[in-house]
């Protein structure tokens, strides 16, 4: 039934082989000796990821090498990538903060948007974009990875919300999702890209909220704290500039937020520009420095991606034509070009379930309970 030639033989291969194994199983994780392992049906997210990765092919999307079905487990073997954005950002905070050079940020963003445009034109929503899921090869190519929450959105038979109640890791979750929108669009991915852009520049998540847990009745709570973090920088969303706002399920929650907090946050407008300028200053980005600066074009791009109203938010296609990319010379397909010094390789672990590469709470795939599949995101290096 399962294909032969497999995990065992691969792990005996010489050390030159580096594979990323994603083990999509948990209940039948063979850790309990003697327990008979049962087929329980695969999770919808495993099915989606396998089907999508099999179909997709783009320089900025992770390349699937092979899927091995064996011993009631599925191993998705991907091309090995040495780095990811989370690790790169982390590297720049140590031993002290030193900003990522502006041309590198520009190359990362361009490649990232290219990959996203490919996904969106193929009717694929990623729904879990965050630095940990953006892989980088040693030659500086960006690969969008982890399609475990991705799905097709061409004329869905059911509303997107009814399929998965919670999508996108909390810090990167778009306001329309926080407001409980039943229908959403590729704009949710663009919000996350905006957050990633901000994080590349400031080396910290721009909206680092705390997630409210789902209660025992499995109702999805209003993410008050996360919404507050956004409001603190962007000001309160307004019906005048976001006409759909008042009909959002959590609109009354948003209003109660206004009543219960001190009003200082709410009466001013967006402070994104202030945030951006101090970020450039702290990072030592300047037009006279050797590292260069994302400048005012960078701000304009960021503000269009962090637009409250999803229908006005910039699309991947529009972003690629933004002056941030069209001005200021060619963009390298190698984000490390001209960069001195090396980034450390990703930590290769046997069981990597910590917060760095594992899913943050609230992003657990809400598949049907028939499967017990959870990503163990296992990386083996022999």
């Amino acid at each position, binding site marked *: 039934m399962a294909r032969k030639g497999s995990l065992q033989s691969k792990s005996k291969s010489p050390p030159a082989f580096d594979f990323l194994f994603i083990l999509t199983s948990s209940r039948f994780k063979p850790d309990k000796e003697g327990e008979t392992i049962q087929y*329980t049906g695969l999770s919808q997210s495993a099915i989606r990821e396998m089907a999508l990765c099999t179909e997709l092919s783009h320089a900025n999307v992770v390349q699937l090498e092979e899927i091995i079905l064996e011993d009631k487990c599925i191993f998705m073997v991907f091309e090995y990538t040495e780095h990811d954005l989370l690790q790169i950002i982390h590297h720049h905070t140590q031993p002290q903060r030193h900003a990522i050079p502006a041309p590198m940020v520009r190359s990362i963003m361009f490649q990232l948007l290219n990959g996203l445009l490919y996904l969106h034109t193929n009717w694929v929503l990623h729904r879990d974009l965050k630095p940990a899921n953006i892989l980088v090869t040693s030659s500086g190519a960006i690969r969008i990875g982890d399609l475990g929450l991705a799905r097709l959105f061409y004329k869905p038979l059911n509303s997107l919300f009814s399929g998965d109640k919670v999508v996108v890791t909390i810090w990167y979750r778009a306001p329309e999702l926080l407001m409980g929108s039943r229908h959403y669009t590729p704009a949710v991915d663009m919000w996350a890209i905006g957050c990633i852009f901000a994080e590349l520049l400031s080396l910290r998540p721009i909206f680092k909220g705390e997630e409210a847990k789902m209660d025992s009745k499995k109702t999805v709570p209003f993410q008050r704290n996360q919404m507050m973090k956004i409001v603190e920088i962007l000001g309160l969303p307004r019906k005048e500039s976001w006409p759909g706002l008042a009909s959002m399920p959590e609109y009354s929650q948003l209003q109660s937020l206004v009543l219960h907090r001190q009003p200082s946050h709410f009466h001013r407008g967006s402070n994104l520009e202030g945030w951006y300028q101090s970020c450039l200053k702290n990072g030592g980005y300047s037009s006279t420095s050797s590292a260069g600066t994302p400048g005012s074009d960078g701000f304009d791009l960021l503000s269009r991606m962090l637009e409250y109203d999803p229908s006005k938010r910039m699309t991947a296609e529009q972003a690629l034509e933004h002056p941030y990319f069209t001005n200021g010379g060619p963009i390298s397909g190698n984000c490390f070009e001209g960069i001195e010094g090396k980034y450390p390789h990703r930590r290769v672990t046997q069981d990597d379930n910590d917060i760095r590469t594992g899913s943050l709470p609230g992003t657990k795939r809400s598949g049907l309970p028939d499967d017990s599949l959870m990503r163990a995101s296992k990386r083996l290096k022999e």
Partner: protein
Amino acid sequence: MAANYWASTQRRHWLFSREKLVDIREGLREKDKVAHSQFPLPDQRLLNIYFNQQLIKLGKRMSTRQQAIATAQVYLKRYYTKNEIRQTSPYLVLTTAFYLACKMEECPQHIRFVVGEARGLWPEFITPDVAKLGECEFALISEMSSQLIVHHPYRTLSELQTELSLTSDEIALAWSVINDHYLTDLPLLHPPHVIAIMAIIVAVVFKPTHPSAYPGTGQSALASSMRDGGGMQMLAALSDKTGSGPPPKIQKLVGWLAESEVDIRAVIECTQELVSLYEVWEQYSEKSCKELLGRMVKSKNLDK
């Protein structure tokens, strides 16, 4: 990929020539000649009609959408290009194809619910053990090399609706023609847009007088209207675009076809395939399919 049929695994791996398909089936037959002579089965299309009816029954209580049923039918076809039907339990395979298709088409059903429903329909053939279905799902995914995204003609149909100013009756008829094409090998032989155009031509040119809500009668109305010189009419219309005969709607369609780069010969071939489906349909007997399959599964212990 998902939007691009030309780059899809469906086009690259699941599109066969007629000869190739014959070879594949001949190969499967060669491997198990004994079973073939011991367990004769009805014409593949009659079996497909039976499977389709079973899938619809299974989907009914879960109010499954047609697209998921269509995907399940394609999975069945793909699976049986790799496996001899006489070595499988068709009821298990079809339940599994349904379960998997529902997940892929984003209308998932719980495995226990699917098994429960299937047991309600075919108690002799489906065990209460969900692991059986899980195991079969593994086999199905493996045989299909995880290539689970299926491009359907329904999409082309709705995309062309405005361009060809199709009426809702014509759309409904074309839709049911597309439903019917899953009963043939056409999904393995032609790209979805060719099928969609065939369905549109059939709907616009033949237009049976009363498209019925009941599948049986609808088909025979369509079949007879296609047989009674209709085919000739269409072929004439296609080849003679200056002719004064056909009504404006058909002229418009013919004009559109001439400008598009659609393979007209493939479209005509599909139409003929459909006509012969409707002819063979007259021999269909649910009882005989059920008995032959039942005998095969029981005597070979395939349900174990």
